[in-house]
């Protein structure tokens, strides 16, 4: 009702005093700038302190290259698996009624409440060379701890809740009616999933996958415990950054940190582009 003119001194019940508004907006901008924007700028500024050549040279180092490859490989394995598990868990929880549902939801949240370091230690205890299972695996030539499988397991544990947590509220809100309608129209369960369920959850799924991906590339604590920090072999980007920083190689550390930030920014950009491209459809179907 913006075309109604209000007499001086009166304003709609949901509108705050201009001063309050400016204070709140100002505080938000200040907080964002201080907590998000400034550190991001600092990372890039520090990386380029000795010039672009020095930064690029440090990234050309074989250990840095190995760290980038390892981190991308971990994300490429952990994210699709967690997306599949997350969809399965959300589907199971929202479309079926069974005993112990609340317990299962709590279990899915467990990685959020357990410290990543504890998660890493659990994997070391389970699969370490001193455990029965771990000893056997090492004997077979498949070490888990201090090797890629352990890092992937640790990453998957830490990032497990992201996809399921995004999907569960959306799927609860949508209910089962559309799936039931598809079944009555003769569609198989599999077809119903691909043509009705998945399209309805795709934005929540995308968001969950992006969060999962960002965390998978950035995870430090759990990976630090299980990886053994072997340079060029099991040191991921975050771990390499820490090691370089501790050795006072700050240009190298911040260059690698800048690459990690760029990877995160690219995923955000990707999401924004998709949202813009599908803006019409989003508006028409009320999905965000």
């Amino acid at each position, binding site marked *: 009702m913006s075309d109604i003119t209000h007499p001086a001194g009166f304003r709609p019940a949901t509108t705050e005093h201009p001063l309050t508004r400016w204070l709140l907006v100002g505080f938000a901008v200040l907080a964002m700038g201080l907590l998000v924007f400034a550190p991001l700028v600092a990372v890039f500024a520090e990386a380029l302190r000795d010039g672009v050549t020095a930064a690029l040279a440090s990234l050309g180092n074989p250990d840095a290259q190995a760290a980038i490859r390892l981190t991308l490989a971990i994300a490429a394995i952990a994210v699709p698996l967690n997306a599949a598990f997350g969809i399965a868990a959300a589907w199971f929880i929202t479309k079926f009624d069974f005993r112990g549902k609340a317990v299962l939801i709590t279990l899915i949240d467990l990685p959020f409440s357990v410290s990543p370091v504890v998660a890493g230690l659990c994997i070391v205890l389970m699969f370490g060379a001193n455990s029965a299972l771990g000893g056997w695996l090492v004997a077979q030539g498949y070490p888990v701890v201090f090797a890629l499988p352990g890092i992937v397991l640790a990453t998957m544990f830490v990032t497990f809740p992201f996809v399921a947590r995004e999907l569960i509220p959306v799927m609860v809100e949508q209910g089962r*009616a*559309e799936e*039931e*309608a*598809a*079944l*009555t*129209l*003769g*569609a*198989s369960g599999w*077809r119903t999933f691909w*043509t*009705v369920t998945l*399209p*309805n959850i795709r934005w929540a799924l995308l968001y969950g996958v992006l969060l999962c991906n960002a965390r998978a590339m950035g995870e430090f604590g759990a990976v630090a415990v299980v990886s053994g920090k072997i340079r060029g072999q099991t040191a991921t980007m975050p771990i390499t950054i820490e090691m370089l920083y501790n050795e006072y190689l700050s240009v190298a550390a911040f260059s690698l940190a800048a690459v990690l930030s760029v990877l995160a920014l690219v995923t955000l950009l990707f999401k924004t582009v998709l949202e813009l491209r599908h803006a019409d*459809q989003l508006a*028409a*179907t*009320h*999905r965000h």
Partner: protein
Amino acid sequence: MHIEIDGISKHFASTAALHPVSLSIPSGALVALLGPSGSGKTTLLRILGGLEFPTAGRVLFDGQDATGLSVQDRRAGVVFQSYALFRHMTVFNNIAYGLNARPRATRPAKAEIARRVTKLLDLIQLPDIGARYPSQLSGGQRQRVALARALAIEPRMLLLDEPFGALDAMVRKELRQGLRDIHDETGLTTVFVTHDQEEAMELADLVVVMSMGRIEQVGRPADIRARPATSFVRDFITA
């Protein structure tokens, strides 16, 4: 198609939604399942559609036992309470869904599907809305699209759950006539659930009054009005 419900009961956990009920629905009839909420009418409809399976009893379609028949094989055209249109698909694709879902051998060609969808859009008197999304339609239009989608699969029967529940009084009257016309034109055995006795009496050939998981009375509207079988029926139809 003639539907025979033979001693159907349904228990959810420890509560009985349906005590054994039996009912014979003649081929081509327009039947109302009438009752307050919790009377078991929607459960009975879902059992007919294959979305729920009975704890005991049998369902017979044209004399054939259909109790264990899957929801896909029932070929029941179902209109859901809130219509359950596929929100990410256009109206055209909503109506074409059932035809596209058929196995390749029996799936009509693309042009044939388009022809049938156009025909159904004409039938529901909304020829120009094929390209729209469900959220861009009014409640009455959505209901009619849901009806067209259910009819597209060439169903053996039509099942409607509170088809007029979410509509305002004006649209409701109009769509009642619409359903009656479509029923008379297709000759499909049609069962709809309602809690509105006026709607049931005005629209249906046969009214089934239900309460607490039991059938209280089955009869033509005039007979039920003239001779209510129980005090519940008398109170409910005069309410």
